[in-house]
């Protein structure tokens, strides 16, 4: 089998330690969290770093803090742990669903939130649209200090942040809302989804929608919000069929990506159905 090119592994003991180690290594180095993508790199012919800085042993990166106002998730929290800890929080049910259905059970035990956000080539990442629809913020640590970015901004800038930068935590503001996550794999189990819709809905006292945030993943190269549908849903009843019809009217705003799993037109075509399913999940 192809030999791993990396000849060194440094296990960082703190965030500062990790940032310093990454700065030392420059473009030859890379952070290593769950390691699932790094370990696939040889067989896929992907670029491999010469030197890795392991961050999964840093305790503060593995914590989840829940308060009345926000949930703060360390970047090395695994998908499995995230699903387990968020399960009792109804507002974040969508993110719990995303974390609990990504990849397969064994991968979920090691793959991390930060890794899912930072793997820029992975269009089908489940957590990205789920965090987009929650207006999450991403806190990064660099050799120049800390910075907090809105997740959409982070997604645009993640490949140009520099080698000595680390995602430290993800901050989610809590609002009175419902959320859901609908994904479409080719088989029932084990495939990357060809399209993902994540949404969060706030409703008025009369039951109409006050705010809608809809994240779409895997359809295009980078997940993004469905702004036209969000605007169209405001003031309408929270109704799955109506939402699906509204989605049908504005699905053309997406330009699907071609892939070995599905062609571009298919990914766009299934979006209204996924919107309807996500709305149905809100009621379950």
């Amino acid at each position, binding site marked *: 089998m192809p030999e791993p090119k990396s000849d060194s592994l440094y296990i960082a003991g703190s965030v500062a330690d990790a940032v310093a180690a990454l700065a030392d290594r420059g473009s030859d180095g890379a952070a290593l969290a769950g390691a699932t993508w790094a*370990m*696939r790199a040889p067989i896929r012919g992907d670029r491999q770093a010469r030197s890795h800085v392991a961050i999964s042993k840093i305790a503060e990166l593995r914590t989840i803090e829940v308060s009345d106002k926000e949930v703060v998730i360390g970047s090395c929290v695994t998908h499995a742990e995230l699903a387990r800890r968020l399960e009792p929080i109804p507002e974040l049910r969508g993110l719990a669903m995303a974390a609990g259905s990504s990849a397969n*059970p064994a991968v979920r035990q*090691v793959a991390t939130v930060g890794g899912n956000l930072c793997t820029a080539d992975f269009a089908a990442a489940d957590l990205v649209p789920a965090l987009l629809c929650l207006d999450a913020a991403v806190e990064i640590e660099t050799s120049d200090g800390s910075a907090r970015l809105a997740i959409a901004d982070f997604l645009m800038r993640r490949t140009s942040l520099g080698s000595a930068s680390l995602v430290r935590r993800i901050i989610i503001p809590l609002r009175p809302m419902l959320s859901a996550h609908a994904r479409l794999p080719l088989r029932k189990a084990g495939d990357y989804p060809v399209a993902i819709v994540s949404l969060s809905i706030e409703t008025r006292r009369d039951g109409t929608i006050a705010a809608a945030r809809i994240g779409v993943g895997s359809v295009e190269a980078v997940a993004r919000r469905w702004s036209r549908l969000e605007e169209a849903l405001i003031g309408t009843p929270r109704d799955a069929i109506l939402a699906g019809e509204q989605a049908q009217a504005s699905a053309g705003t997406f330009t699907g990506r071609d892939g070995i799993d599905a062609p571009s037109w298919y990914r766009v075509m299934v979006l209204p159905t996924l919107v309807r399913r996500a709305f149905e999940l809100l009621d379950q």
Partner: protein
Amino acid sequence: MSICLNVNGEERSFHGAPLTPLLDVLRDEFFLTGAKAVCREGFCGSCTVHVDGLPTLSCLRPVGLLENSAILTIEGLGISGNPSPLQKALEDHDAVQCGMCFPGMVMSLTAFLEQAPDATGADIKHALIGNICRCTGYERIIEAALSLRVPTPSVEGMP
């Protein structure tokens, strides 16, 4: 890099590149060939072992991150003449065909049934989404797992 591991209750050490997959350490260094090298991308589950009690895809775990970890492979789970209840159930149900996926199946199911002894067929199917079998169609594997099911006792008068 030198890494100390506990493999099937025995202290072992590996000297080599830290990003060497645990799978290759087990097979090539320790000659524990039960875990299979198939997809090497974490999809098929044939390389599943337990690391510190958790089912783990050994093809995706760099040995450098496993210092002092407790590794359990299929060789440590049941030995000839003394199979585990799950192994015996799979044999009784004539579930095995080529056998390539079965070490991984057994490791995944062993861990799952320990934490969900009352699992239904749907639960078992969901737990096995990371273990691919090309031979059997999964039916007898699921029947064998269900034969070990311990239903949750109902309490009279409880809703």
